[in-house]
């Protein structure tokens, strides 16, 4: 039986997008520098949408690795 609780490493990967897109808002909520023609805050969020997906993809690999039957737990 796989453990239902996600591993601490995967949870940390999930925490990264929260820090980047939510808690740090005073640091990146500004217009300049405009990148690729976008205000900085919008640009930042777009980049982090992609990076969030990446974080989850890594967590997915970790979780499915844990789940393979017969594989010893790390």
């Amino acid at each position, binding site marked *: 039986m796989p453990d239902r609780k996600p591993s601490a490493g995967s949870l940390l990967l999930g925490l990264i997008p929260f820090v980047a897109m939510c808690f740090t808002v005073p640091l990146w909520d500004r217009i300049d520098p405009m990148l690729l023609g976008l*205000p900085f805050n919008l640009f930042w969020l777009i980049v982090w949408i992609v990076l969030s997906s990446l974080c989850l993809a890594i967590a997915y690999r970790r979780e499915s690795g844990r789940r393979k039957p017969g594989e010893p737990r790390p």
Partner: protein
Amino acid sequence: MSATAVSLAAILLIVAGGTAIGFLGAARRRMNLEEWTVGGRGFGVALVFLLTAGEVYTTFAFLGASGWAYSRGGPTLYILAYLTLAYVVSFFLLPAIWEAGHRHGMQTQSDFFGTRYGNRYLAAFVSLVGIASLVPYLDLQLTGVGIIVQVASFGAIGRTPAMAAATVLLVAFVFAGGVRAVAWVSVVKDALVLLAAIAIGIGVPLIHFGGIGAMFAALAHAHPRHLTMPGATTGLGHAWYVSTVLLTALGFYMWPNVFAATFTARSADALRRNAVLMPLYSLVLVFIFFAGFAAVLIVPGLADGDLALLAVVRRTFPPWFLGVVGGAGALTAMVPAAIQILTAATLFAKNLFRPLVDPALSDDQVARLARATVVVLGLLSLALAAFGSTTLVSLLLVGYAGVTQFFPGVVLGLFWRRATTPGVFAGLIAGVGAAVLLMLMRHDPVFGLNAGFVALCLNFLIAVAVSLLSATAADSPAAPSRSRAWS
């Protein structure tokens, strides 16, 4: 052909085509209760993706996101953050919900509470709050159809006839095909929304300003404060942003319809893969934002910001394209409305009527009652939307704060063995009560924080404290134990 006729033809073609695919997708399936509510638990990654996308991108996303960009500016960015973070939460939460659902044959959110906490009053309270939150949401979708079709048809179809036609169609395909039909209508809807959003988001800045960069430069020059928080508002600053993003990211999957969609998945793995993919799909909203921001300079001074997107499209594109946007917009309202109506009807028949009025009903009888309820709810919502007022929007916000209060009961129920029925019930009542009181008495935001978020914190504290104080967790019949009766 006149502009009206062209646009009208495009709208009708799209709505008819989308509805037909819904009927076909669910044809030749034997409709028992489980097939109707959760698609026989057989959806793979593709159908789960379509259903999720179908539910997420409502008229609120389509008109609301651009409307906020137009009328409020910077604060609208919270939508990009909360959707992405909602999927991050779903990656960790949904597989556990799915496993519990798979093990115990759950079809609704109320089933989850009933099984985990073994208290039918708690389960009934959860269905009641769920239904009460869904009805204004449903009405908002119908109102959205009315607005979109009216504007896109150059006024040829009035709001009420448009709403009536949409209600009849969506009640018909929900009645016949259940959740599977909804997922299939989503195929047409999402393909069109994707194309329309990209065309609008690139086309509008290009035609009026020569490009997206030039548009933002012009906007930053004309309204330097519009693009950051609090933008054109006074109260929506960074504290509001953080608390609102947290509330909505945690609460998103607590909507009864979104929660129940978890049970349609074939496997927990399909849900994890979906969570990895979904953030990328929210990039579509970026294009909607472009149109909303461009509208600030192109069609300034609109009384209703929600009309900004359609106004700017009408100003920029030929009538046939306005028709396509209108058709896509109509489906964007109908798909979420369909799943909301299905969920509310199931909650009523399975989790309120059967346990409290007639426990002897069989599953097939519950299924018949739920389908009949779909018709009743459809008519009721249509009447509310036709004669209702703008207070619906504020009711919806109360609904959002309300459903989010399910979060502690779900998370503690899944991952904390010591969560007890009194604890979760007390927290839920306190949370719902606080949210409703604060919002109806207009204390939102409270100290710069989202009122629903404050209620959620209270709820969590009470749930944990009362759980620790009340009897041992082992007393609760379905509590997870080391013997893994629950897990």
